[in-house]
C-alpha cells in the first residue's frame, strides 16, 4: 500500500487542463466577495443610485434630452458601466494585494495551476463580480429610469468585455503594487479619472475638440459608448472601433497577465 501511495506522487498528472484546480480558484474568488456582499454588491448599488440622483438634481432641470432620449436614460447605462468597471477592478486587485501582504499568496502559487489557469481563475472572479454588480445596479435603477434594450448583443458584449478588461488590469495592478498606498494611488489617480472622463455623464459629440480627443484616447469611452448604444440605440463613436478596441485590449491584457504569472514578477521573489 505504501509503495502505491508514494508512486502516485510525481509530476503533475492532469490532461491539458487542471479543471478541478481552476474551478477551486474561481470558487474561492467568488466566495471572497459574496461573503461580504453588503460591501461588494449592495454598497456600489447605493452609491450608483446616489450619483444618478445627484446628476439628475444638478443638471436634470436644465437638460431635456440628449439626442432623442431623456437625460436619465442617457445617464443610466454609463453609471451601470462605471459600477461594473470599478468593482471588477477592485475584486482582483484587492484579492492579490491582500494575499501578498498577508502572505497567503502561496495559496495561489503553490497549487498545480498553470499561468493560464491562474489568469482565467482570477479574472473569472472579477468578471463575475462586475456582472453581478451590473445586474444589481440595473435592477435598482429600473423603478426610476425607463430603460429598454435596443441591441442586447452590445449590452452583453460590452458588459463582459469591460468587466474582463478591468479585472485583468486589477490583476496587473495587484501584482505590481506592494502597499495599500500604491493601490490607493492607482485608484485615485488612474482608474477613477479614466472612468469620470469617459463620457459616462455627458455626450462626447458635443464636447470641444480637445476633450473629444481625450475621450477617444480612453478605452473606457468605447465600453461606455457601446454599452449605452445597446440600451438607447445611439452611439457617439464608431461601434466597430469600440469592439476592436475592447477585443484588442483584452487580448493584450490576457497576454500580459499570463506573462506576469509565468515569470512570477513580484510574486515569487
Amino acid at each position, binding site marked *: 500500500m505504501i509503495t502505491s501511495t508514494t508512486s502516485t506522487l510525481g509530476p503533475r498528472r492532469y490532461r491539458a487542463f487542471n479543471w478541478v484546480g481552476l474551478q477551486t480558484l474561481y470558487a474561492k474568488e467568488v466566495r471572497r466577495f459574496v461573503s461580504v456582499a453588503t460591501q461588494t454588491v449592495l454598497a456600489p448599488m447605493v452609491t450608483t443610485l446616489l450619483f444618478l440622483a445627484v*446628476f439628475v438634481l444638478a*443638471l436634470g432641470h436644465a437638460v431635456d434630452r440628449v439626442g432623442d432620449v431623456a437625460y436619465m436614460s442617457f445617464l443610466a447605462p454609463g453609471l451601470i458601466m462605471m459600477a461594473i468597471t470599478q468593482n471588477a477592478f477592485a475584486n482582483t486587485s484587492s484579492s492579490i494585494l491582500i494575499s501578498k501582504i498577508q502572505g497567503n499568496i502561496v495559496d495561489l502559487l503553490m497549487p498545480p495551476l498553470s499561468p493560464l489557469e491562474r489568469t482565467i481563475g482570477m479574472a473569472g472572479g472579477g468578471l463575475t463580480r462586475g456582472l453581478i454588480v451590473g445586474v444589481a445596479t440595473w435592477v435598482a435603477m429600473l423603478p426610476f429610469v425607463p430603460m429598454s434594450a435596443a441591441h442586447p448583443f452590445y449590452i452583453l458584449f460590452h458588459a463582459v468585455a469591460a468587466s474582463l478588461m478591468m479585472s485583468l488590469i486589477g490583476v496587473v495592478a495587484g501584482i505590481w503594487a506592494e502597499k495599500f498606498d500604491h493601490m490607493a494611488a492607482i485608484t*485615485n489617480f488612474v482608474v477613477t*479619472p479614466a472612468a469620470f472622463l469617459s463620457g459616462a455623464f*455627458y455626450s462626447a459629440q458635443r464636447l470641444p475638440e480637445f476633450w473629444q480627443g481625450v475621450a477617444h484616447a480612453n478605452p473606457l469611452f468605447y465600453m461606455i459608448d457601446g454599452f449605452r448604444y445597446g440600451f438607447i440605440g445611439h452611439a457617439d463613436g464608431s461601434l466597430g472601433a469600440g469592439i476592436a478596441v475592447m477585443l484588442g485590449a483584452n487580448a493584450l491584457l490576457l497576454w500580459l497577465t499570463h506573462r506576469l504569472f509565468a515569470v512570477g514578477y513580484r510574486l515569487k521573489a
Partner: protein
Amino acid sequence: MAAPALRLGPRRFGRVNWRGCLNLLRRQFKSGFADLHYTILGPVVSNALYLLLFVIASTSLTRLDPQALIAFIAPGLICFAIAERAFEASGANLIFEKHHNTHTDWLMAPLTATERAACFALSSTLGGVTVGAAVALMTLAFSWPSLAHPGALIFFALATGMMHGLIGTLLGIWALKWDQYTALHTFVLLPLAFLSGVFAPIDKMPELAQHLIRLNPIFYLIDGFRYGMSGAASADPLLSALVALGMNLALFLWVHRWFRSGYRLKS
C-alpha cells in the same frame, strides 16, 4: 531616592491637564497625516474631477452658466471634504486602535472624559479643515470665489468638521468590525451628505423633497457654509448656526458619556 517614590500619588494637575491634552491632540492629528498624498492629494484630485465633470457635462448638455454652477457646487464639495476627513480621522482611527489595542495609550493616560472628548473633537476638526483648505485652494483653478461673510464661513467649516468628527468618534467606539463602520458610512452618512442640497438649490425641488431635506442637519451646515461664501442661503443663517451648535453640543455630551463609562473601550 525615596523622594521620587513619594511623589507618586493622585493626579496633580491644575483643573485641566493641558500637557496631556496637547499630547493627545498631537498624536491624533499626526496619525491621519502620515501619508500626505493619500489624505490630502486624494480628496483634492477627486474633487477637481467632480468640478471638471460638472463643467464638461453642463457645457455639453445645458445652457447653464458653468461659473454659476461651480460657485454653487464648490462650497458643498469643500464641506463634503471637511466632513469625510473629520469622520475618517476619528472613526477609522478608533477602530484601528481598538483592533491593535493601542487605544490603551490614551485610556491609561491621566485624562478626564471631557479632555478626551475635546481632544477627539478638536483633532478631527483640524484634520477636516486642513483637507478642506486644500480643496478650497484647488477650486481657485476653476473660479475665483467670493467671500461674503468670512465669519460664517469659518464657523460652519469648524462646525462641519466637529460634527463629523464626533459622529466618527461615536461610530468608532460602537463598531466592532470594519463592516459595521463602512456599512453606516455608505448607507447612512453618504446618502445624508449627497441628499443635502450640495448639488442643487433645494428651492427648485418638489415640496416633499424640500421638507425632507430640511430634516437633514447636514443641509444646514452646507447651506451656512455657502452663505459664508456667496452670501445666498436657502435657510435662515441664524437657524443653521443654531442647528450646528445644538447638534455639536448633543454629540459632544454623548461622546463624553461613552468616554466616561468606557463603553466598548474598557471591557
